[in-house]
């Protein structure tokens, strides 16, 4: 049963990932990433990480992807002349990626960690992966990381406003909003 669930989730996650890379329209790539994240959350559940799976759905597939959808719709479906200007990377990119995959697989499977062939420790402590356990770890053992994360999010929010905010009067004409000529195209 676990095997069926794993391979179902793995095929969905890999299919979504391939669709992100291969689909030509950025809008569809965003939607493919949502599919990928949902299937990946299912795999997280198999690893007894309930809270992370829920956070993945809520934060990633929910909030972050909404930003992506807005930006992809705002800048429009740029018809990318896919790979035209970099034929070398078009050939060597997948080869390098396949080599990287083989290398990581050899490094992982060839390691002397015999526990990798097992399903992990047989008996995890009760409450493993629940919000209670993760929250306890986060607010007791990793409090500094937690506070640093909150500061990082604040800085990121300020940076987004500074980068994407309108600067109509203060800067030159190059900063003005394009008036319709290069407006957002159709998402589809």
């Amino acid at each position, binding site marked *: 049963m676990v095997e069926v669930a794993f391979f179902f989730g793995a095929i969905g996650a890999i299919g979504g990932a391939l669709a992100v890379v291969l689909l030509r329209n950025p809008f569809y790539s965003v939607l493919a990433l949502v599919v990928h994240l949902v299937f990946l959350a299912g795999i997280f559940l198999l690893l007894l990480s309930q809270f992370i799976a829920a956070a993945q759905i809520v934060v990633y597939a929910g909030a972050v992807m909404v930003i992506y959808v807005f930006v992809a719709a705002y800048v429009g479906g*740029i018809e990318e002349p896919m790979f035209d*200007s970099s034929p070398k990377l078009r050939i060597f990119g997948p080869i390098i990626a396949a080599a990287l995959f083989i290398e990581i697989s050899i490094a992982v499977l060839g390691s002397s960690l015999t526990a990798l062939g097992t399903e992990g420790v047989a008996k995890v402590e009760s409450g493993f992966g629940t919000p209670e*356990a*993760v929250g306890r*770890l986060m607010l007791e053992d990793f409090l500094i990381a937690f506070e640093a994360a909150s500061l990082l999010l604040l800085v990121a929010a300020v940076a987004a406003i500074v980068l994407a905010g309108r600067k109509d009067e203060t800067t030159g004409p190059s*900063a003005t909003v394009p008036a319709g000529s290069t407006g957002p195209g159709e998402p589809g």
Partner: protein
Amino acid sequence: MAIEWYLVLSAMLFSIGFAGVLVRRNPVVVLLCLELMLSGGALAMLSFSRLHGDGDGQVFVLMVLVVAAAEVVVGLGLVVAMFRRRIPLDVDEMKELRG
């Protein structure tokens, strides 16, 4: 399921994202492929967390989620700023920073 399977899956997701970063030219899609690489890393950390029965890896994955959110906000802010200034949305065209 043995933990090996999860690790191989995470390596595969990381490699697919890596290929996308190399091959695609639209900055939005490059950011999406970076998300793929991050999720591959997150899956590996959760696998080892399960392997050891230790929750520390899960906290680390939450930190990865936070960093990814910050990266997305800044990256997409840059994309919007590029679009406003009519800079072509093509990572191959951005050569001004070349040293």
